[in-house]
């Protein structure tokens, strides 16, 4: 594990939620990572517990009119994006927002639905062994994090190891790409 990740993990340890925290008290941020040759996609599902809904709304509903507009949705996705740190082999990546989906406010208030943000980032060429690191600092005081990698659909990619901080705010993925990336694969599922 790199010294930088170790530092991140240490920082993340300090923000672990109290052991007795209730789901209602937390903003659950679940990220699924999808690897492709030359690209990484992040699907982030954010579900506010009913007791932290107001705190989340203060960040999302910036004009405080009780309705999350399209523009507020876009700004919120950018805010989440800004709170993420994504790197490959120690090089900072610049993901972009593909889409953001915000359900009606009442559904969010009742804990019935989630905000979904799709992100993507180009991966520069690299060696056979690669290391992807994701840090999520978004609303760390009230959040619980889940991070997982989907089994790559392209058989040239193989996950070797996953490491996480105790609250999953920091995540490291080691994988190999077995063959040089000449062009994007048409995909072979396994």
């Amino acid at each position, binding site marked *: 594990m790199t010294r930088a990740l170790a530092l991140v993990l240490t920082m993340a340890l300090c923000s*672990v939620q109290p052991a*007795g*925290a*209730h*789901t*209602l*008290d*937390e903003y*659950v941020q*679940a990220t*699924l990572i999808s690897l492709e040759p030359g690209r990484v996609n992040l699907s982030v599902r954010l579900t506010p517990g009913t007791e932290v809904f107001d705190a989340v709304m203060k960040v999302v509903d910036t004009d405080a009119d009780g309705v999350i507009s399209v523009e507020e949705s876009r700004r919120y996705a950018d805010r989440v994006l800004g709170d993420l740190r994504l790197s490959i082999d120690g090089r900072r990546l610049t993901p972009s927002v593909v889409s953001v989906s915000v359900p009606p406010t009442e559904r969010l208030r*009742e*804990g*019935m639905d989630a905000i979904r943000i799709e992100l993507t980032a180009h991966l520069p060429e690299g060696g056979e062994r690669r290391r992807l690191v994701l840090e999520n600092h978004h609303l760390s005081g009230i959040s*619980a*994090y*889940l991070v*997982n*990698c*989907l*089994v790559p659909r392209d058989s040239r990619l193989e*996950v070797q190891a*996953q490491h*996480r*901080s*105790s*609250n*999953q705010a920091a995540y490291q993925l080691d994988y190999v790409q077995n063959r040089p990336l000449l062009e994007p694969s048409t995909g072979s599922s396994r």
Partner: protein
Amino acid sequence: MKRWIRSALWLLATSLLFPVSLAADATSSATQRVTEAAKGFLATLDETQRRAVVYSFDDANQRARWSNLPVGMVPRGGISLEQMNAAQRAAAMKLLSTVLSRHGFEKIQQILQGDEVLRLNRRSGGGPRFGKELYYLSLLGAPSDKTPWMLQFGGHHLALNITLAGERGVLTPTLTGAQPAIYTFEGKTVRPLKGESDKAFALLSALDATQKKQAILDYRVANLVLGPGEDGKTIEPEGLKASAMSPPQRALLLDLIAEWAGIVHESAAAPRLAEIEANLENTWFAWSGPTSVEPGDNITAYYRIQGPTLVIEYAPQPGDPAMHVHTMYRDPTNDYGRKLISR
């Protein structure tokens, strides 16, 4: 003796402990019995109810309309037990007892009764309704012992999605849960997910220090990863691979898996368990959270079992994790009977 045969015998022996009044007709196949029970249920409904219950087999929206949440928060399709008269309810229960193993039927009844306890113990006021009447039954397609159709039964903490195709029956994806996960009913302590908790702890306890180091994740898992709305996804497995377990440990793992695979009737459960056993060496067991539990209590740790055709998650909910549990059972290769339908 093959382990799946032992598991099937266990299911049979367990089922004998829970007598129900609906004895199976030994001369007909399981699918024929389920089909007849479904047709019998439909025959009790009036036209309006029938239209509410039966969906097209390829209705993708209805197929995915299930949740752990109360029905007031996520409306289900079909009609509820509350909306049925006594004869209709009896026919619905006959259908469920036919399509499920006796052990599975017992488990589902305990989940419903738990929701009734939740209703009775709840202070009056607003918010979602609870109770054993608020469970909905729907069918996708026409009941048949030849062509595929599907039965859904669910409400708060329960989503059974059972696809039947000829002699095969597929139970995935299915969600079970309980709140309260321990309660008293008619003077007896009931734990609807007792096996899921106790057998997992028995497996963990059977691991040596090196195996535990691999199985126990050093991070918190706050909830289900592949819960409702996460169809068609396969995550990288983690934890301890069963190939690194001893035969007795693998037997414990298979017995634990049977808590989910054995919910459906024995004729469908046996081939499913055989399939899971065939892939057992490539099945993983991961644990996150406390590694101790008081006798008679539920574990408060998350665990996941994942193999080539299997994902099981057990997720205690924060707050009072021993008393509020969600579980998920999937086959990433065959959710909603995808493989059967494509044949």
